[in-house]
């Protein structure tokens, strides 16, 4: 494991830059200099998906000469009525159906403005309910909850003119389900994530940061990932029984099986609360291996590669289930371990035994992550996507 000194204040700085509302006039000024405006509508500004799919995209739009971005919350969509003539494209970020939203889409179409539905999960159609329930490990008591969400998302999506998502697998489903065009822009790291990651990587490359305990990291998004960890729980248990200096760090929500109580009492389970993206980079940097187990099915094949690149940016190697995006990473020859179900123990044991060699891969991991998942390497792709979206016929 590694002892890393955190960089403070980065996340707060990002937050303070979110006040885009006050600049409604930028829509007019940008339009007047020939720059196109894309309006993002999101549920709320503190939604996790909103961060990756709106905030980070704004970091790339800032790099484009041809496009300006503006964001607004769903509850306020009808308040931009006087600006329609300055808007070229609307993107609805995974927004459920409301009457106001329907009216908003109608008004956009009246002004001949394409409306794109953006989603980074397979959560827009009831026909995928079984895959969702299996992928999220949700019990039957949540059926109603999911049906309501899926219907609401579908009712919005069906009104839109095109679709936008994070991987080709999901993109193809969207295109087939709605018989309209779909685009792919992967999730990627923002400037703050990259900045803190470079600081942490530098510390890891220094011998002083290293100590010989071996820490496995599980960075959970929400309690819906319980099933994912259960895929490998017993193998982790065996490994930890076998080697007393192996620890498990859990960030976020995870209910461990009762057999792990023995490690809890030995203080070998390190728990951290759910945290912001920059603090998370420090936690990931400190572990030796990033665990990314997933129940492989249609739902998880639609997931993006966030967990891989967040770890790779700080030089931490990932062991990943063979979902669509992780198999692609493996096929590209990028550093990382694909683990089929039941093979995790041998892969992890091998990494543990050869743990002193992990350092040799730090820079490669970082560089591969930057090549594909740095915000500044998305500009060309994003411009092409926005141009194509804007030109579709309604």
């Amino acid at each position: 494991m590694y002892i890393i000194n955190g960089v403070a204040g980065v996340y707060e700085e990002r937050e303070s830059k979110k006040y885009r509302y006050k600049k409604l006039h930028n829509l007019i000024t940008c339009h007047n200099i020939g720059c196109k405006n894309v309006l993002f509508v999101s549920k709320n500004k503190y939604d996790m998906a909103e961060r990756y799919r709106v905030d980070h995209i704004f970091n790339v739009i800032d790099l484009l000469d041809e496009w300006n971005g503006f964001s607004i919350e769903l509850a306020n969509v009808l308040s931009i009525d006087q600006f329609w003539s300055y808007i070229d494209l609307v993107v609805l970020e995974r927004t459920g159906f409301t009457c106001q939203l329907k009216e908003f889409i109608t008004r956009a179409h009246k002004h001949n403005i394409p409306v794109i539905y953006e989603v980074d999960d397979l959560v827009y159609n009831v026909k995928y309910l079984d895959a969702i329930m299996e992928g999220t490990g949700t019990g039957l008591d949540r059926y109603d909850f999911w049906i309501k969400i899926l219907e609401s998302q579908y009712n919005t999506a069906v009104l839109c003119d095109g679709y936008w998502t994070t991987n080709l697998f999901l993109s193809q489903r969207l295109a087939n389900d709605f018989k309209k065009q779909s685009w792919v822009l992967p999730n990627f790291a923002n400037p703050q994530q990259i900045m803190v990651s470079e600081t942490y990587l530098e510390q890891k490359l220094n011998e002083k940061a290293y100590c010989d305990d071996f820490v496995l990291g599980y960075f959970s998004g929400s309690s819906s990932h319980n099933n994912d960890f259960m895929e490998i729980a017993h193998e982790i248990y065996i490994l930890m029984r076998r080697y007393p200096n192996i620890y498990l760090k859990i960030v976020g929500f995870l209910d461990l099986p009762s057999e792990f109580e023995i490690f809890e009492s030995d203080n070998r389970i390190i728990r951290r609360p759910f945290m912001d993206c920059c603090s998370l980079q420090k936690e990931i940097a400190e572990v030796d291996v990033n665990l990314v187990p997933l129940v492989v099915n249609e739902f998880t094949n639609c997931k993006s590669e966030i967990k891989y690149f967040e770890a790779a940016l700080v030089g931490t190697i990932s062991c990943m289930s063979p979902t669509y995006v992780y198999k692609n990473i493996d096929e590209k020859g990028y550093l990382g371990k694909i683990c089929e179900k039941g093979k995790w123990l041998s892969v992890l044991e091998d990494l543990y035994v050869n743990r002193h060699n992990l350092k040799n891969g730090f820079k490669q991991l970082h560089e591969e992550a930057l090549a594909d998942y740095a915000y500044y390497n998305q500009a060309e792709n994003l411009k092409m996507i926005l141009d194509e979206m804007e030109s579709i016929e309604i």
Partner: protein
Amino acid sequence: MKKRILIWGTGNRTKDVLKVIGACEILAFVETKPSSAQFQGIVVIPPEGIKDIEFDILLVPIVDNCQIEKYINDDACIKKDKVVFLSVDNLLETGFYYNQYKLIRDLIPLEYLRQYLSWNFEFMKYSPQILVKEHMDEERKHLILYAEQRGYLQFLNYEFTEKYVHCKYDIQYDGQKKMYYAVWKERKFFFPRSWKLKQAACYWRDAIMCYDEKSPLATSMQNITQGGIAVEITQEMPLWSINEIDNVACVYIVNSDKEWAEAIKASFEDQGKEFYVINSLSECKEERIDKMRCDISENVAQWLSTYLGKFFILNIEVYVYYKKDDLKEVQGVLESKGFQCRESDGYVYYPQDVKPFEKIDFRKGIVIGTRQEEKNTDMESEDVYKNEGVGGCQL
């Protein structure tokens, strides 16, 4: 007095709403097809019965049912300004327009509403309806009226801003310097090297709008003294200094941003005047400053307390809109140092530091301090800051 409310529906969403609403008097529940005469001990009425009841709020916890929304919108007997669409299980997603804020703020206990408002407050802050109009002078009432006609509040709420909003800005690129620039009063103003055209255009719009003669931030110091030293403290473009340049002998610009410092040097090098771009005022070698303009967003009063004793300053303008107490605190510091103070004309709107449920008002833009020509006896020894080093750049 408790708000008298009607609640539409008797289903699960209504039960959710009942969990969060606090002090209020529920007069009735509304159901299109009532299955019983009462719900939770309160009468259930059909929609046609709404017109017979005196109520303050009709709460509609159903937001994805267009039929109900259409019914309410089409029924002339239902006053629309009393209707609140609300989904408690999904407060973040739907149904809460900022213009309903005043209706609902007394209805839902703070712990729920505050959580919601912290998410949505950023937008609401720009709705004219959030301002409390009592005790406002005629000018501020006029500003609200103007903002209401336009639909939203902005930093400057004056008619003169219209010409800047709709203007097409001619921003040029200097291939040699590799920087965008704008021309104003026959002078070039360069933007930081990394800036895009769109960024420069939007910034330039706001910058020159603030220097319009009708702006609350327009300078009042031009021509009050000829020659002498001017100092501008800013983290951005020093428009004031360039505006003043014909009236002074030497200009110091305090700007610690590297990119801006480069752009400032490019803007000043053709002006034919002595100028310095410095990181901190302690690098200024002068004892006497004829004109100073301070644009400092954090702890401005504290900053003034530190520096006013180190120089003899004749005229000073200080931005005081960033924090709601800046006006009072800055005036206090300036008066304690012998300045006669007055506020600039007009108001700006800057609610960035306001929290949900705090009163929001317009603010004064600048405090102007002047004092008589005599040696400041409070002036501290140069030793106080001689070790800080001088890093100015004279071109």
